[in-house]
């Protein structure tokens, strides 16, 4: 927790980094791992898919081990882990697919 300090009077007021809200979807083995099929996540603006994963791995450390073996989609399009997230995005964590 940050120490509460008052800004020096001559400096401009600190702007708190804007927060974004992202809906995360889990499927198949990842849904089993997470114990849920979706969650809402608040992240700082500019956060990437990888940042979202790191945030969720605080609760579920096994997710970090799965990260290299899953793919990601934002708003139903595949993206890489360094893709930035925007407010309102739908992020899907996609384990290796096995349809057909």
């Amino acid at each position, binding site marked *: 927790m940050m120490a509460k300090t008052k800004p020096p009077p001559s400096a401009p007021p600190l702007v708190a980094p804007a927060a974004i809200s992202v809906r995360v*979807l889990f*499927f*198949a*083995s990842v849904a*089993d791992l997470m114990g849920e099929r979706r969650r809402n996540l608040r992240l700082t603006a500019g956060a990437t898919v990888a940042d979202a994963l790191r945030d969720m791995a605080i609760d579920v450390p096994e997710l970090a081990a799965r990260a290299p*073996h*899953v*793919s*990601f*989609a934002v708003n*139903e399009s*595949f*993206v*890489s882990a360094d*893709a930035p997230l925007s407010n309102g995005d739908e992020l*899907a964590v*996609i*384990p*290796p*697919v*096995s*349809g*057909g």
Partner: protein
Amino acid sequence: MIVELTSDPIDVPRLIDHVNKPSNGGICTFLGVVRDNAEGRPVVKLGYEAYESMAVAQMRAIVEEAIQRWDLDAVALSHRTGELQIGEASVAIAVGAPHRAEAFEACRYIIDTLKTRVPIWKKEFFQDGAVWVEPVSSQPSAG
């Protein structure tokens, strides 16, 4: 063009009728059916889960790629979700084309590509447990 996910049994004759246009001379179909074993281990049943909206979007994109590449006017693609018994079709593809080479190649392309990038997952149920099937080579890349 038919592109669908369905929790009901796939109506294969309907898909074939859909691609049977007067200008087509050949129709190639592929059905994936539930095998009674997974590398020798007896399978009791299968379950399919999908990221439904994205799966349909990806299936449609793959079909459109095939239509462009082989200049087709008639493709049907249906994939099951939910619980399937041995012998039921999990996926059915029908491709009509003026000549057979295009029908075979496009049908093969659609099933091969579907298996690499459509967000659908298969769970194999054995006598003593169940596992999600996760092929090592099937990871879609970004973009």
